[in-house]
């Protein structure tokens, strides 16, 4: 029999340390739904999603009950929708929005929490459909509740599409303005990527990449609270001990993800894709990545030393998790979404954590500038410049970076936005007042970087 202490350790992790499976995400290819007539395409898309995912939520709930492990979200990711838009007779914004509404309706019909894939991959150039889809993003996000959108504007192999960077700054701004009554909520469902991954189960950036199969199950694990509690037991010990403790904890967390992924895959009769071994915080007390960094000995997240602490954490999570799962993928690492993390919120409010420091942290963490609320009067070109900086970090360092930023209409530094649920509360953080408009207006492409002579 398994050791009683191990059994109680698992139960304690779930009951008191917020261990959970963050998401079971079903990837569904919509390529078979392409066609010239929008009404036919919408019908095919609705039918396919509701057929493939009809048992997803129930299966998730059954696993939850039988294993006693909370599964917070059940989600769907689909083929980048720009693929379908490109195949249409005459792509228009209205047709794009109609398709977005169809996705929303299908997501609601099967009872999932979010559906991702209102996406365009334009890191090197645009097709006609991609241009129209990006144009439609603000309206599509405002007209839907569960649809999430992402745009890939750069990659290590292609460089950065600065025309797309410019357009995305404007798109983010417009998405905020069009949902001004909800403090720019649409922007919480919109991510701008560099080096986007094809099997990410996390929102808002999930989509099913071109290299993926017909249907796949990807699982995202979470457990910042468990790591924090484990580190409490090794206070004052050196970093070798810290790294080892994080690794062991990540191993256990990931094993649980692997078990759930295999079980869900078996029950749904859908191939298992990957486990994304991420530390994804929630606004709940004790479920914060910032508190892990503070547990390492920093007075506040954002203090000097934060980047080093995050680098150790991110690396140790991967090392521990990789052995625990047959297939690791997605974003895999520590997330640092400001509004979704109680410790980050506190650090941002007291001024310890700034956008500049977050930018440095994104060089060593899993993704990028995430869920950051900035003043509503920030120019679109400044948002584009923030996106460009972040994309440059990803491009040069061969990693995924992203920007999910909310220019909250009418709000200024010191105000606060309540998004509710897992999205949390965002303090409005200051951005530099100096302009980048001429830089952004240049357009064109930043060439792909050299991959030797690394210094």
């Amino acid at each position, binding site marked *: 029999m398994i050791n009683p202490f191990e059994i*109680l350790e698992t139960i304690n992790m779930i009951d008191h340390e917020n261990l959970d499976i963050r998401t079971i995400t079903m990837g569904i290819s919509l390529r078979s739904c392409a066609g010239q007539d929008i009404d036919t395409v919408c019908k095919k898309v609705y039918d396919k999603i509701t057929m493939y995912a009809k048992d997803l939520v129930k299966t998730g709930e059954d696993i939850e009950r039988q294993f006693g492990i909370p599964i917070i979200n059940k989600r769907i990711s689909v083929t980048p929708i720009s693929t379908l838009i490109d195949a249409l007779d005459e792509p228009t914004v209205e047709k794009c929005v109609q398709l977005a509404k169809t996705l929303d309706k299908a997501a609601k019909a099967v009872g999932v929490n979010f559906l991702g894939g209102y996406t365009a991959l334009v890191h090197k150039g645009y097709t006609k459909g991609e241009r129209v889809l990006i144009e439609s993003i603000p309206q599509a996000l405002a007209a839907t509740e569960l649809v999430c959108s992402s745009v890939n504007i750069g990659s290590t192999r292609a460089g950065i599409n600065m025309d797309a960077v410019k357009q995305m700054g404007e798109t983010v701004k417009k998405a905020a303005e069009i949902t001004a009554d909800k403090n720019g909520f649409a922007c919480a469902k919109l991510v701008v990527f560099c080096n986007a991954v094809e099997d990410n189960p996390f929102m808002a950036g999930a989509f099913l990449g071109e290299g993926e199969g017909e249907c796949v199950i990807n699982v995202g694990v979470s457990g910042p609270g468990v790591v924090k509690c484990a580190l409490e037991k090794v206070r004052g010990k050196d970093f070798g001990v810290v790294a080892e403790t994080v690794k062991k904890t990540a191993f256990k967390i990931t094993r649980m993800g692997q078990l759930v992924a295999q079980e869900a895959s078996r029950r749904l009769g859908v191939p298992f894709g990957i486990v994304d071994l991420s530390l994804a915080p929630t606004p709940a007390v004790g479920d914060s990545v910032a508190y892990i960094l503070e547990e390492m000995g920093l007075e506040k997240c954002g203090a000097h030393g934060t980047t080093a602490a995050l680098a150790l954490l991110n690396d140790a999570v991967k090392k521990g998790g990789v052995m625990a799962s047959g297939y690791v993928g997605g974003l895999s690492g520590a997330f640092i979404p400001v509004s979704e993390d109680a410790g980050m919120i506190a650090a941002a409010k007291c001024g310890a954590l700034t956008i500049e420091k977050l930018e440095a942290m994104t060089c060593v963490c899993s993704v990028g500038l995430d869920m950051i609320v900035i003043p509503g009067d920030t120019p679109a070109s400044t948002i584009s410049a923030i996106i460009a900086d972040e994309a440059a970090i990803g491009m040069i360092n061969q990693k995924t970076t992203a920007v999910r930023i909310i220019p909250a209409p009418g709000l200024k530094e010191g105000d606060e936005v309540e998004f509710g649920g897992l999205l949390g509360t965002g303090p409005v953080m200051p951005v530099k007042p100096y302009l980048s408009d001429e830089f952004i207006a240049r357009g064109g492409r930043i060439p792909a970087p050299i991959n030797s002579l690394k210094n």
Partner: protein
Amino acid sequence: MKAIVTVVGKDKKGIIAKVSTALYECGVNIVDISQTIMQDMFTMIMMVEFGAENVSVQDITNRLSEIEQEMGLKIHVQREEIFSSMHRI
């Protein structure tokens, strides 16, 4: 199918009797049992076995939740694989 039943709470008379009777009534066989007092808390861990076609984890959970409320305990019923996968390579 194998599952682990954990019972944690303030020690009092009749916990084992009630839990094992309920399990018996569900048609569940107790394979192994360990019991200890940790920090004044009664802690019992049982490995149980049952035919999945006759009874489900959910049925057992529902049945034991009555005892959970009546006696002020915390009872979990979880499939055994979650522990073996987490703690064994």
